C-alpha cells in the first residue's frame, strides 16, 4: 500500500503541465529517432542529453524527457521495420519478420496499429512490474556489500556481449578501451592522480556524457556525411486503417506473453531488448496454433513489439535499484543521473522518492501519449521519415555542442567531444561496439572501488569475495553469462538469420 501512495505522489509530479509537456516532446522525438534507420534508443537518448542540459532542466524533467525518448524510440523502431523492412534499431529486427509481409499485403496500417497496441501493452505491464519489483529490490540491495557489488559488476561485464552479440573479442576490446579511459583522473581510494599530466581539466577524469555524445551523436553525423546525406527515405503510402475489436482481442494473449517475457529479459543484466523480442517471437511461434508466422501473422508483430518494449522498462529495474545498467540505453540514462548528482541505488528510492516515482508515473503517462500518437498520427511520422537528414543532422550537432558547452563552460570539452566522435566513427567502421566502451567507463571505477573496499574490510583476505551465498550466486550467473553465449549464441543467431532470410523469399 505504501507503494501505491508513493505512486500517487508520483502522478502528482507527472501530471503537472511541465512534466506532461516534456513527456509529449520526448515521445515525439523518441518515435522519430527510433523510426530513422540506424538511430537506436541509445543514440536517441545520447543525442538528447545535451538538449536537457542546454535547456537547464531540473533532474526530474530531464529524466522524464529522456525516459519518454527511450520509450518512444522503442515504439518508433517498428515503423521502418514494417514499412521498409529495415529495422529502426536492433530490437525491432524481429518485427520485420511478420510486419513487412503484412505491409506487402496492403495491411501496413493494421500492422502499425497492432504493433502500437502491443508496444503499449508491453510497456504498461513492464512498468507495473517495475513498480512492484523495484522497491523490493531496493530494500534487498542493502544486503550488497563491497564483495557482492564486485561480483555484480563482474556479472555485468561477463554478460556484456549478450546472447545476440556478434564478436566477443571485439566486445572485450571495447570494454577494455572504456576501462582505460576510466582510469584517468584522481583515484578516490588513494587520492593519487592517474594520467592527468597536471591538467586541471583531467583531474575528475573524462566525463562520460561527453564520451557518450561524441561516440554516438557525432559519429552518427560523420556517417550521414559519408552517405552524402542528401535525400530522405522514399515516401511510403499507407492504406486506410481497418481494425476491429476482434483483431485486437486476437493478438492480446500474444502481447501479454511477450510483455512478461520481455520484462524478465530486460531485468537480467546484459540480455536486453533484442533478446526480449527474440524470445517473445520464438515462444509465440511455438505456443500458437498453426498460424502464418513469417508470412504476415499479426501475432508475429504483436509478440516481439510487446517483448522489446517490456524489456525496455525492465532494464530500468537494475539501473535504478543497484546502479548497474541492464542495457546500453540504461547505461546512457545512468550517466545522465550521475552527472545530475543523483546517485542511483537503494538510496534513490529514499532520498529522491519524488523523482523516482515521478519518472515511473511519467512512464505511464508517456506510454498513453505514445499510443495516442502512434495510432491516429502514424502518417505524420511516416512523412517525417522523409525529412532529408541534411536538415536534421546540423540541428543535432548544434544541440550537442551547446549542451556540452553549457555543462562545463570549457572549450576543451568540445574538443574531447569531437575526438570521441571521430573515434566512434572509426570504431563503428571496424565493428567495435560502442556500448561496452560506455559501460567500461561507467562501471570500471565502481568495480575497482568495490574490490578495494572488500579487501580493506577483510584486511587483505581475497576469500572475502566468495564468502556469502549472494556473491557465490552472482559469480555463478557471471560464469554462465560468459560461457553460454559461446555455446548458445551461434545457434540463436543462425535462427534469427534463417527467419530473416525466409522473409526475403516472400
Amino acid at each position: 500500500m505504501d507503494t501505491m501512495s508513493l505512486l500517487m505522489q508520483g502522478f502528482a509530479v507527472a501530471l503537472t503541465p511541465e512534466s506532461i509537456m516534456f513527456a509529449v516532446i520526448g515521445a515525439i522525438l523518441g518515435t522519430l529517432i527510433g523510426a530513422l534507420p540506424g538511430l537506436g534508443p541509445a543514440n536517441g537518448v545520447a543525442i538528447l542529453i545535451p538538449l536537457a542540459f542546454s535547456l537547464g532542466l531540473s533532474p526530474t524533467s530531464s529524466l522524464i524527457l529522456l525516459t519518454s525518448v527511450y520509450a518512444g524510440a522503442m515504439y518508433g523502431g517498428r515503423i521502418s521495420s514494417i514499412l521498409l523492412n529495415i529495422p529502426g534499431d536492433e530490437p525491432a529486427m524481429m518485427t520485420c519478420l511478420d510486419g513487412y509481409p503484412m505491409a506487402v499485403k496492403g495491411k501496413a496500417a493494421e500492422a502499425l496499429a497492432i504493433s502500437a497496441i502491443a508496444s503499449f501493452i508491453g510497456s504498461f505491464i513492464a512498468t507495473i512490474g517495475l513498480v512492484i519489483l523495484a522497491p523490493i529490490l531496493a530494500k534487498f540491495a542493502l544486503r550488497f556489500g563491497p564483495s557482492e557489488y564486485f561480483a555484480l559488476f563482474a556479472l555485468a561485464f561477463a554478460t556484456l556481449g549478450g546472447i545476440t552479440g556478434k564478436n566477443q573479442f571485439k566486445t572485450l576490446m571495447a570494454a577494455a578501451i572504456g576501462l582505460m579511459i576510466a582510469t584517468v583522473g584522481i583515484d578516490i581510494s588513494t587520492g593519487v592522480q592517474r594520467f592527468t599530466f597536471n591538467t586541471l581539466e583531467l583531474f575528475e577524469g573524462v566525463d562520460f556524457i561527453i564520451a557518450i555524445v561524441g561516440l554516438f551523436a557525432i559519429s552518427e553525423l560523420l556517417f550521414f556525411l559519408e552517405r552524402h546525406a542528401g535525400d530522405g527515405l522514399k515516401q511510403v503510402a499507407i492504406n486506410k486503417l481497418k481494425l476491429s475489436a476482434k483483431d485486437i482481442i486476437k493478438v492480446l494473449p500474444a502481447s501479454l506473453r511477450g510483455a512478461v517475457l520481455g520484462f524478465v529479459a530486460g531485468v537480467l543484466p546484459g540480455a536486453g531488448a533484442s533478446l526480449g523480442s527474440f524470445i517473445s517471437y520464438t515462444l509465440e511461434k511455438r505456443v500458437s496454433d498453426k498460424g502464418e508466422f513469417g508470412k504476415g501473422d499479426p501475432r508475429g508483430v504483436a509478440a516481439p513489439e510487446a517483448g522489446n518494449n517490456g524489456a525496455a522498462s525492465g532494464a530500468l529495474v537494475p539501473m535504478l535499484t543497484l546502479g548497474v545498467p541492464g542495457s546500453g540505453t540504461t547505461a546512457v540514462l545512468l550517466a545522465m543521473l550521475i552527472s545530475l548528482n543523483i546517485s542511483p541505488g537503494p538510496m534513490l528510492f529514499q532520498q529522491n522518492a519524488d523523482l523516482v516515482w515521478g519518472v515511473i508515473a511519467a512512464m505511464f503517462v508517456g506510454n498513453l501519449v505514445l499510443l495516442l500518437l502512434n495510432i491516429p498520427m502514424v502518417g505524420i511520422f511516416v512523412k517525417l521519415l522523409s525529412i532529408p537528414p541534411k536538415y536534421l543532422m546540423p540541428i543535432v550537432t548544434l544541440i550537442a555542442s551547446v549542451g556540452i558547452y553549457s555543462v562545463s563552460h570549457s572549450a576543451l570539452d568540445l574538443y574531447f567531444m569531437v575526438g570521441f566522435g571521430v573515434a566512434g566513427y572509426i570504431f563503428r567502421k571496424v565493428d567495435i561496439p560502442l556500448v561496452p566502451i560506455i559501460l567500461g567507463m561507467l562501471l570500471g571505477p565502481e568495480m575497482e572501488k568495490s574490490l578495494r573496499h572488500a579487501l580493506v574490510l577483510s584486511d587483505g583476505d581475497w576469500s572475502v569475495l566468495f564468502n556469502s551465498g549472494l556473491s557465490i550466486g552472482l559469480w555463478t550467473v557471471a560464469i554462465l553469462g560468459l560461457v553460454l553465449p559461446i555455446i548458445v549464441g551461434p545457434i540463436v543467431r543462425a535462427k534469427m538469420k534463417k527467419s530473416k532470410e525466409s522473409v526475403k523469399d516472400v
Partner: protein
Amino acid sequence: MLKNISLKSVLISGAVALTIAGQASAYEPARSGECIAPANPGGGWDFTCRSVGKVLVDQGYFKGNVQTVNMTGAGGGVAFAHTISKRDKDDNLIVAASTATTTRLAQGQFPGMNADQVKWVGTLGADYGIIAVGKDSKYTSLTQVIDALKKDPSSVKFAGGSASGGWDHLKVLMTAQKANVENLPKVRYLAFSGGSEALVQVVGGHVDAFTGDISEVKGFMDSGDLRVLAVLSEERLPAPFDSIPTAMEQGIDSVAPNWRGFYVPGNASSESYDWWVKTIDELYTTQEWKDIMTKNGLMPFHKSGAEFTQFVKNQTLDIKVLSQDIGLIK
C-alpha cells in the same frame, strides 16, 4: 515572539535599503552578477550559487539577474584557475566555495595555486560533521569508538563520501588526533563517490561507521537505521538534531563545520570587496535566507571579511599540518 522577529526583519530590510543607498557612491554593482558553481548542477556549490543568487535578486541587490554558471573540474580547481587567470579583476563575480576548497588548497591539489590568490568574502551557514553507526552496532558512544581505535587503529572501518584524504576522511582523523589516538595512518577509511553510497554500506552492516555531514543522515536517522554518535560542533544543533551529543561533551575537542561561502577574484577592487562582505552580512540576517537554511539543513555559521580570511588561513594550515602528519602529502 513572532512579532518581535518580524519587526526585526522589517528594521533590517529598512537598514538594508539605506545601506544600499549609502553605498551607491562607493561602488555600484552592475545590473547583473555572476556566480560560478565549480560543479555540476545539483550539488552543494550549485545550491549555494542558486539560492544566494535568488535572494540577492529578491532583496533588490541586483536589478537584473544573478546568473549561476557551472564550471566543473578538479573539485573546484578549474573554477579557481579560471578566476585567478581570466577574471582577476571582475567586480561582479562570486565563486562558491566550501571546506572542500580549502582542503584541496591545503593539500596542493590545485597545482601552483594557493588561498592568497583570491579574496574570501564570507560564509552563509555550515553543515556540521557527524560520526554515526548502524542500529545494530556494538558502539553506543564516540568514546567507545575512540577506545577501540586506541587499542587498534584499524579495528573500526569508516565509510565516507569524499575521496581518500578529503574532508570526510579528515574529520575522522582530526577527531582521533584530538583524542590522542596513535598511528593515525592505520585508521581505515573507505572512499565512496557520495555520502549516500557510504551510508547504505553502513546501514547494511558492511562497514562499521559513517563519517559525513548532518544534512546527509536525516532520512536514516528518522527511520531508526542509523545511530549518530556525535556531532562535531561547538554546541548541540537545533531541533530535530538536539538529541545528538557533541564530541566535546564526550571529552573530545573536535569541531568540523563544512561551511558554505564565497570568494571573489584576487584583484577585484577593494570597494567591491567591501560591498560583497556587507551584502553577505546583511543577506545572512534576512528571513528569506533563514528559511532557506532551515529547509536545507544548514546550521548557523557566519564569518566574513577579515575574520573569514583569517579563518580560511588557519583552516588551510591545520589541514596541511594534519595531512603531513598522517602522510597524505609530503
